[in-house]
């Protein structure tokens, strides 16, 4: 698997992501500066977490307009894999590669804590090493993770099976309490119709090592490596 990580000014989880990808694939990912436009030859483009451009106008808004995103869009159009985590998810919605938007957390505070995610389907390249219905733990760290889309869009996402992760209790129940940021229908992660573009708010890349408190996030990367092994 040849992976690249897009680095926007203000991104800050690119190193975490590189560690997780290298651990799973044995290769250091390529770091892609936001002004680069040639990303040919990569299987997976990751847009990591952080505060691109400080998130000063709207999370992800300025990054979505940068030159590299045109190349990412083209990569996605070719059927390439794109993973956006946290700020990366926000950037993907701002770019239009994924529907909806991420609003301010319902409690209006930045939240940094572990959450539990229920895997809604295991037949994607991102979730093939999980079971459908399995619950795993992941740290989240964001101020704007409250997923919003209009009801038609939500119905379509659900109808087409594009909701990939939901906030759940450790037992897998979809409750209001488990929905830490107030997301519509507890949605934590969604995919594009071809299931190759995925965005999620929590950080599986920060839970890939027993020392950091667990390896719950590792199957996501192992699954990708298995799917994209050249």
């Amino acid at each position, binding site marked *: 698997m040849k992976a690249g990580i897009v680095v926007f*000014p*203000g*991104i*800050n*989880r690119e*190193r*975490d992501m590189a*560690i*997780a990808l290298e651990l799973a694939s044995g290769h250091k990912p390529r770091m892609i500066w936001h002004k680069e436009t040639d990303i040919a030859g990569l299987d997976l483009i990751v847009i990591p*977490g*952080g*505060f691109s*451009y*400080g*998130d*000063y106008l709207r999370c992800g808004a300025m990054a979505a307009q940068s030159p590299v995103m045109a190349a990412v869009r083209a990569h996605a159009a070719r059927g390439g894999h794109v993973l956006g985590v946290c700020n990366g998810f926000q950037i993907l919605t701002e770019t239009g590669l994924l529907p909806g938007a991420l609003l301010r*957390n*319902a*409690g*209006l*505070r*930045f*939240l*940094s*804590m572990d959450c539990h995610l229920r895997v809604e389907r295991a037949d994607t390249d991102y979730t093939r090493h999980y079971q459908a219905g399995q619950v795993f733990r992941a*740290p989240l*760290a964001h*101020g704007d993770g409250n997923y919003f889309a209009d009801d038609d869009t939500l119905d379509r996402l659900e109808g087409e099976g594009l909701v990939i992760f939901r906030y759940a209790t450790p037992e897998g129940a979809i409750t*209001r*309490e488990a*929905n*830490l*940021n*107030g997301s519509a229908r507890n949605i934590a992660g969604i995919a594009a119709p071809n299931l190759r573009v995925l965005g999620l708010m929590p*950080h599986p*890349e*920060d839970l890939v*090592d027993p*020392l*950091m*408190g667990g390896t719950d996030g590792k199957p996501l990367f192992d699954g990708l490596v298995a799917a994209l092994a050249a």
Partner: protein
Amino acid sequence: MARDVNQALAREFGLSADEYQRVLDIMGRTPSLTELGVFSVMWSEHCSYKSSRVWLKTLPTKAPWVIHGPGENAGVVDIGEGLAAIFKMESHNHPSFIEPYQGAATGVGGILRDVFTMGARPVANLNALRFGDPALPRTKRIVDGVVRGIGGYGNCVGVPTVGGEIDFHPAYNGNPLVNAMTVGIADQGKIFLSAAAGIGNPVIYVGSKTGRDGIHGATMASAEFGADSEEKRPTVQVGDPFTEKLLIEACLELMATDAIVAIQDMGAAGLTSSSVEMAGKGGVGIELDLDAVPQRETAMSAYEMMLSESQERMLMVLRPDRQEVARAIFEKWDLDFAVIGHLTDTGRIVVRHRGVVEADIPLDPLAEQAPLYHRPTEETPRPAPLGPVADPGGLAEALMTLVGCPDLCSRAWVWDQYDSTVGGQTVKRPGAADAAIVRLEGRRRALALTSDCTPRYVLADPEAGGAQAVAEAWRNITATGALPLAITDNMNFANPEKPRIMGQFAASIRGMAAACVALDFPVVSGNVSLYNETEGKPILPTPAIGGLGVLEDAAQAVGYALAPGLELVLLGETAGWLGQSLWLREVAGREEGAPPPVDLAAERRNGDFVRGQILAGRVRACHDVSDGGLLVALAEMALAGDTGVSLRPGPEGVAPHAFWFGEDQARYVVAVADAAALLAAAAAAGVPARQVGRSHGADLTLPDGHTMSLASVRAMHERFFPAWMGVESA
């Protein structure tokens, strides 16, 4: 700004009559407004340490592992494998009172710059916070703003906030304390200092543009607050963490080359202190051309530019042949880059603006003749002994009161707003261990980090309190298995011109120094914040200690969360010391007595024993016993691990409430599989040890037969902050 420079203006700038006379003597003429500004900020308490220097010099600062002690932007210690930890703590107390969000945010930004200016990538932030009475609406507003500000800045720059401490006391009503600490990692061979060198070398300004922010911030930080402090408000600066993030990356990129001769952040007193200190340390002169300074506002005067405290700026001296390499890096990161001067052999700072020499000051006398005061001190009288105190209501009730009180309740509401995992190296997050554990990227080695101080002890007995603060930091690091290496300190005190306050300062330093020596725990950096009082009401004396330790293998770190089926052993001597305890204050309603004595030999012996047991793999959980005493420590361990505990009665001869809530020092609770083996080892090492209970189930069973569910204790423990702040449910 066409004001005459005279003694009255000098007084407004914070210079005494004597100090102004000294300026006249050095200059041999009436200084210009800009020159007066330079003198006033360089000779402010904040920059010159004029009241504290004589005492700070008595702190132990050396050890074989200390690479740079106090005097540089931050302290530097050898942490093995060719790496250095660079760390410091700094206050932003006054700005945080005036504008809590921005005050705290820019405090974090400032301390980050102190650390990355030396070549380190910042890897962790901590903060030590003291607030007034929670019953006051103002306290709530300040806490909310400070916590948001720390998170807003730290989260955005992508440095995990991994620890800290929070106390409440009415003494901080008009003067909260916001102390921020940053820890960074550098290669030992790539440490950058601030001494300028190379006559003719260019002086470079990088970062954000200069505005009229915070003019006279350094002198404000050196003045007592009065009813007119509202009027001082326009000096507040706004932080820009995005620019700081770019500055970190750009500086680290440049530091990988050989372009930099010297570098220093522009902190308090901005361009003035950075240029004067860089030139002064290097024994060279410096000439600045203010027309070249990137400016955000129009028509700024030389005085304004020299004193501006605009954030996110750095000053560097570069090798002339590397100037374009450096420019390209800063342009890549969209940061301003300007050559604003050069080094000279004149030993003077010369400042030009629009063709006029606005300042021309000899640097040696500016530094050497800076005021230095041996202020009178008055000892704090020994507190009267406490005498016996009856237990008004039993252990269970007291425990509930204590775990729910603002000083002991869960801080989760706070740390949940701080990104503690960014970087992917946080092994022990807030609430998991006595010190935060942060691994070094790509290695097994890890740092243990903590911040500690018990101001009520320091008030009652400044010397014992100073020693206790250092000892607690050492103990918190030890309790994770790490080896304590060094501390940074943040000395927050009231008006040093009052002998009682200066006496607190001096005695605290004495106590700290004794503890540093006994524990091999030198001071490598620090900060002093004086005049923390409002309308004559002083804060509690607060020498906040930031401690750093190292673990060879992060996997050896233990936290305090209990698992079921373990034996609980108390290490260290328990006399049942209730003087100045939280039990006495919260349960008996009295703030009295002497604080617990600090026996440094016992501290050392017990701690070395505990660390040895942890590194030998015999300890499953460990917690030091501090505020609230033994029963609170046990409850915290039970809550963290969601595992119940059954306790045995304490010894004969110590009243139960004194045994369970006394705050005797040098104690730890360890959870082990084999208590007999541990007791034998402790006996052999001369460490008092006593089995106090075991872990199992979901209840807390007290020695008096009371059983309380962990859920009910948790509800009490986690209630205060969300209820106070009115947390809206999602």
